[in-house]
């Protein structure tokens, strides 16, 4: 088994392989709707467990509750009757585990990487908190302060503020209007939301929303047995949130942030694009366009960053989201005076994709780059789990990776032109800028 896996891994990627994801895996649904994905690898001794919850700040539909999915991620570390936080810490410590969690628009992920002997103990411990979370109001209120501390430590970075501004400008109704951190007023009010936190847990932390991903030095049969034992009794009952549909944008939008300290000017340009699962083909085409338009070998990067040196940051692309989101471009400009020219260069570059077919050789280079980037990212068990998590949150299967790379392989210059014509339109565009406030030190 190990030997075979090794052979697969060593395969060549010079031509598009039939399956980009080189590992075999076991995908198994429990009767309660939870899904298990086990991926045995040949990296010895270590196991990574990623618990992918398909719930994120997108689920924060009620006014005043922005930031709650992320806050709730913190609450999940506040223990159960059987395993108070100190006990959870002690077990993880005894396993030598590295643990943490993160939240985004469409997902919350809890992860642990540890020596393989601890697998049973950790699956049991994690199953307990997902089914029996119990914390006091006092612990809850204290945790809300830590989240405020997290906001504070992020607040000196202008990109975070610019990102907040982009979202609240580009979206009117959909919950993508706020960042995962949430509106600051809602963060300040979090200590008073204890009852709502229980509600949030009951609505969304259910097996139908969870995919357990186990990667590393494991036997898939054993993982199935342990999962059935500890996670099988979990009761289904997930509530579907009524996420508002974003009205169609009909005109370009603009906004500006005055920044109180020294900074280089920033801009973010967003174009409305479809959700990932709703149109995987367009999503894949937008990935290719992003590389061709903004990548380090693109004419725009060469012009702005390497030759004219007007910018020191130019990046962006399509981000996989459950619902329609944005194709984004980020740029940091060295001089205030160059901001309009840089904006014009970005917009006209994207417009160029609408009437000029991309060079077939360049398109092949991008496809090759994506294949090798993926392969080079799979250098340990934790990285494999981490790379899959965001896709699994949306589709609950690693097979999507193979599908996406198959689509990349099939796309032609004509396809890219068609997709550019659909989405790079002024009426779908939002431009936000940030610069040092006049007179600020």
């Amino acid at each position, binding site marked *: 088994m190990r030997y075979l896996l090794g052979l697969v891994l060593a395969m060549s990627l010079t031509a598009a392989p039939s399956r980009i994801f080189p590992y075999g895996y076991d995908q198994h649904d429990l009767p309660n709707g939870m899904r298990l994905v086990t991926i045995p690898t040949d990296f010895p001794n270590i196991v990574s467990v990623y618990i992918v919850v398909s719930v994120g700040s997108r689920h924060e539909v009620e006014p005043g509750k922005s930031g709650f999915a992320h806050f709730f991620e913190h609450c999940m570390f506040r223990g159960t009757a059987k395993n108070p936080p100190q006990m959870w810490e002690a077990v993880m410590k005894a396993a030598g585990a*590295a643990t943490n969690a993160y939240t985004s628009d469409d997902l919350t992920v809890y992860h642990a990487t540890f020596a393989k002997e601890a697998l049973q103990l950790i699956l049991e411990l994690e199953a307990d908190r997902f089914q029996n979370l119990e914390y006091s*109001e006092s612990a809850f*209120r204290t945790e809300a302060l830590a989240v405020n*501390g997290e906001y504070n*430590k992020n607040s000196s970075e202008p990109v975070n503020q610019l990102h907040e501004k982009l979202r609240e400008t580009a979206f009117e109704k959909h919950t993508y209007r706020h960042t995962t951190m949430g509106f600051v007023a809602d963060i300040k009010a979090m200590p008073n939301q204890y009852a709502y936190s229980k509600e949030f847990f009951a609505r969304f932390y259910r097996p139908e929303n969870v995919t357990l991903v186990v990667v590393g030095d494991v036997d898939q049969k054993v993982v199935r047995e342990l999962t059935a034992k500890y996670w099988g009794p979990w009761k289904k009952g997930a509530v579907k949130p009524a996420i508002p549909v974003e009205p169609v944008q009909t005109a370009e939008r603009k906004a500006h942030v005055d920044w109180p300290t020294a900074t280089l000017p920033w801009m973010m340009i967003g174009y409305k694009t479809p959700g990932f699962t709703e149109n995987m083909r367009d999503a894949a085409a937008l990935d290719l366009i992003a590389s061709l338009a903004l990548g380090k*070998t693109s004419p725009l990067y060469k012009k702005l*960053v390497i030759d004219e040196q007007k910018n020191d940051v130019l990046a962006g692309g399509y981000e996989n989201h459950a619902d329609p989101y944005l194709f984004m471009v980020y740029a940091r400009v060295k001089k205030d005076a160059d901001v309009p020219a840089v904006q014009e260069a970005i917009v006209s570059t994207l417009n160029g994709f609408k009437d000029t077919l991309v060079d077939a050789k360049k398109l092949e280079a991008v496809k090759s*780059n994506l294949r*090798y980037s993926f392969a080079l990212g799979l250098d340990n068990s934790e990285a494999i789990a981490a790379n899959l998590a965001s896709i699994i949150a949306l589709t609950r299967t690693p097979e999507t990776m193979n599908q996406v790379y198959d689509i990349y392989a099939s796309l032609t210059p004509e396809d890219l032109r068609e997709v550019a014509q659909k989405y790079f339109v002024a009426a779908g565009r939002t431009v936000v800028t940030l610069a040092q406030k006049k007179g600020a030190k």
Partner: protein
Amino acid sequence: MRVLALLVSVVALQAMEVVALPGQSPIINFRFVFRCGSLNDPAGKEGVAALTAAMLARGGSAQASYSEILEKMYPMAATVGDQTDQEMLTITGMTHLDNLESYYATLREMMLQPGWRPEDLKRLRDDQLTFLRVSLRQNNDEELGKEVLYNLLQGTAHSVGRVSSLEKLTVADLKAFYKQHLTQANLTIALAGKYPEGFVERVKKDFGQLPVGRASAVKRVVPKPIGQTRVTIVKKPTLAVAYSFGFPIAVTRSHPDYAALLVANTWFGPHRSSAGNLYQRMREIRGLNYGDYSYIEYFPRGMDQFEPDPNLARRQQIFQMWIRPVEPKTAHFALRLALHELDRLLDKGLTESDFEDTRSFLSRNVNLLLKTKANELGYRIDSQFYGTGEYTEAVKKAIAGLTVEDVNRAVKKHLRKDRLEIVAVAEDAEGLQKQLLGDGPSPMTYNSPKLADILEEDKVVSTRKLELKAAQVRIVPVEKFFQ
């Protein structure tokens, strides 16, 4: 397969050293570590080591412009990176086996025949200047506090340089640095993956084109003596108050007390871990901020990563406590509480069970540091630097022989409660200065009930005297640093 992966050869060829980790992975990792760094920057030319490394990894070669190099690398998704610290200059590379020949040919040109183009110098110098002027001074109060602390304790520039020196650096300065320090005598080449037979020999032969040179006489950092505790409040617009404080220690991985201090620190303030004592007391129980940690080795960029990068080896380290931003109204209390916890570490030490739990954790957790081949190569080179055996084995062996008394003795010997260098980053610097000098009570109030023992402890903490005199608490505008 596993047997192969364990075949590690450390071969000294003339002056150059080689670390080879052959294996079955098609991912080929390169690591070129030169035993030189920002401590070799001549006075007035601070930043030259970092800029030289950047020119090799992010500039053109004699044969190809940087754009042309990017074009070549792009279809392979291959990368070249650089990291410069006080005593090590590192160039890293990664490619897939499919593309090894073409990648290596380019990498070799970049490193052995750099292009030294003025336009590359301008772009990369701008990056370093922006890092100091904007990223460090303005956008990240936590990293700012840490780097100011090193600056004050060691009197050294940031490894990226100073604003004033970077502005003056020329291509000739970079060439001179390259010629003098990027020599065979300073170089360790490390390789991992399923590279072909004879590949290591070829790389060795190619890099034999570098001058043989002599091992760079790296100046040692001589910590500035501290007669009494000093507080520096870095003034800048910001919402919260961030702290970093500490003092130099005699312990590095070469020191017999390293393992004991590592155990103590892993109990007290392990990086980004909720298991640490400091984190528990300050964040988990009291909700003062997002986290609180301590360090016995340099760990830059800690806000973005969970594990330290290898090849930041230094012969002079500091003990450091990192208090993430707190609300200004609790800033006085938070500092007192952090100092109180340091007192408790020194006075009470670890209990037998703290010690056993932490040792057990470390003996397993240390393996996770080597989860990538790139890290494994880096750690091998660090072990050479410190003259220790392979890191994870050395740590496991050393901690197996420890007792709780050894750990607590090492704490008392190397750590201290007084003569601290304290850095705060705050907007209302004058207000904080007044509070610290006033030394009056700083009572804590909470938004929820707390256990009686916490409230009792708060009474002690909130009146803990800092006994600072006016000359010990100064305010410095942020623009004064890294200039």
